[in-house]
């Protein structure tokens, strides 16, 4: 049974989440393993959620916010970028580095971009293999 990566995708209500809706509306497919949690802004992204996701045996964490400079609240995505840069140091030490965490952006109308990001990230995680913390075999 091929390994189906489980990805926890945090999407901001104004850009990422809408981009996901657009991707769906355009019937663009991406792996079912990419599961979306809605935040009002990626500025809400707390490093604890990344560690929690990996502890709950997700294989990768994807954060889709607005492009820098067009955040609905001004600089939420900038704070997300800085906080995630700090937590990636922790992930590297835990052996969860090598790109299992990605911070990117897709504006509300960029459905195709969301689908591309989801597919590419899932593929990258699939190549990395299951998370070393996995005790439950991916269903």
């Amino acid at each position, binding site marked *: 049974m091929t390994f189906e990566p*489980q990805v926890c995708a945090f999407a901001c209500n104004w850009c990422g989440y*809408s981009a996901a809706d657009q991707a769906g509306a355009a019937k663009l497919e991406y792996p079912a393993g990419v599961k979306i949690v809605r935040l009002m802004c990626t500025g809400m992204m707390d490093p604890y959620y990344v560690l929690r996701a990996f502890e709950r045996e997700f294989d990768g964490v994807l954060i889709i916010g607005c492009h820098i400079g067009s955040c609905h609240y001004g600089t939420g995505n900038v704070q997300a970028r800085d906080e995630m840069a700090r937590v990636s140091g922790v992930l590297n030490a835990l052996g969860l580095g090598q790109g299992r965490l990605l911070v990117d952006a897709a504006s509300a109308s960029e459905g195709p971009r969301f689908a591309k990001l989801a597919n590419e990230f899932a593929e990258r995680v699939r190549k990395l293999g299951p998370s070393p913390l996995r005790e439950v075999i991916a269903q």
Partner: protein
Amino acid sequence: MTEPATKRRIGVFICHCGGNISDVVDIEALRRSAATHDDVALATDSRFMCSNEGQGQLQKEIREKGLDGVVVACCTPKMYEDLFREKAEEAGMNPYLLEIANIREQCSYAHRHEPAKATAKAKLIVKAQVEKVRKLRPLEVKTAPIQPGVAVIGGGIAGIHASILLANLGHKVTLIEKSPTIGGNMARSVKTFPTDDCAMCTLSPKMNEAYNHRNIELLTYAEVRDAARSPGKWTLTVEKKPRYVTDACIGCDRCTERCPVSTAKSPIQVDSEWDQGLAKRKAIYIPFSQALPQLWTIDADHCFYFQRNRACRVCQMVCPAKAIDFTMKPETLTVDVGAVIVATGYKEYDPTPLAHLGYGRHPDILTQMQFARMMDAVGPTHGEIVRRSDGNPADTIVMVQCVGSRGAPGDPNVHEYCSRVCCMVAVKHAQLIKKARPETEVYILYNDLRAYGKGFEEYYARSMELGVKYVRGLPGKVHPHRGKLLVDVDDMLTGRRLGLPADLVVLSAALEPNPIDGLLASLHLDKTADGFVKEYHAKINPTETAVKGVFVAGCAQGPKDITDTISQAGAAAMSAAVFLGSGEMTLNPVVAEVDPALCRACDRCTEVCGFDAVHVDPERLIAIVDETACTGCGKCAVVCPTDAIAVRQFTKPQIVASIDALAPMAVAP
């Protein structure tokens, strides 16, 4: 902040979406899975939840089963979240206990060819939302009173127009102008393009309307020193400088005539701001005859009485109305308003740093505003276009565009932006010269002649018909040469290098923001890279700002001509009126909240808040959220060291519940 874990009765409503969902997701399997989650009292489905029949079913179940939480598994919340919440509220349930499980766009649509996986994913999505609803608390939509009244800062055309519109709507307006009179830059522009109207003819009726409007209180020669914000209210501290001239002034002008300041041998000389330095003015003056209020003002910084300890009282002695009172003191008054409109306008760029153009080192090199003053019949040269060096008529005039605008990025002496209006100002002045003295040679050296507005292209074409010569190229050097000013320029269209001997060189200087950093800081406003006030959204919301209740209009927000300024002033007035609305604003309850038992008053939240919506109360040492300003972005929650502050409905336990529900470890039954 641990969430209450009391027993809940949650209803799960699964929508078929007429096949969009049910063709891919096994609705019955999903329903059975949903029924097994803790606190779920009911799991049912419907062909169209968004239909009347679907909404009726929702309301019936809420009433009959006494549901205190609902998850609607359907399309994206962007479609019907508000509708379902409204229906839930009608049925007596707190609307903020309803969440949408997006199993269409983010599940059935996206995984059409993998029904089994789509169904499994739908189960997890529903479980995640159920887990979140279990941790949600009911929220009340509160309203906060808004202080009536608007303060308009800046008495130029933008401020005046906005004030008139709001006053006509019945709002009490306080128009605050730093200089002794309203009117701003437009009043000095003599003519306006492309209509060639006399600027004062179009402006002074508006000035009068504003001056006499019963809903507008005019504070001139007054500056905003501080602005303190409390929920729904701004308290402005305004310092009104003393004019030392009382209302008894009858405007006879005798004082100005007899005032020794700026006379030939007077040690105190002062340039007239009004005439942009082309002429001097007395210590006691009125900027221009139609100035409103019609009051003379004594400039204490250049008056013998104040600067040479009471050495001269001439104005007081000659004043027939005994209107001079040297004992007047500055007044500080506070103005409580609900909304503030920043309309502080622009000032002309000072081209001195551009050494190659020679501004400031030769009397015959002027800026467009100075040239406008020269063309003004009541101006320093009474409308005669003459060389300032020797007073002879100017036979050849060379205008230079983009002075201080469209400069190379990173060059500190110039601006990178285009000031938008200088091309049309140059065209205006050029064709006015041609009409007044056709024999005058007028050149305009331009980079791109931007005649983009309504009637601009025709205006530009007519100026060419009148003989204005346009040279595409900006000058290398301007240097005195045999009594004239030689302008070296490469004509890019012909490739020839030209040396134009000019009697007058007129520089179309850029428009810069007026220095209002103190005001911006107290209103907690940001500036964009070019130094103008930062609007909420450059494209679709240019008149609001990030700070609720503060609006911006006119050149304060960026260079623009009078037409655009009028439109923007109208938009700003409308935005303010809408904001003031019924005197009450309904508050978005999904904003930040502080748990006083946890708050360390460490100021980390106040540092990251982009909307200045949270402050630490120095007495109680606890952060206080101003719910009228908080937008609920949640940046504060991340930097708070104790989770004291969090956005309602997006607290850490609620988000962690969703993560846990979606995680591989929690394989749904």
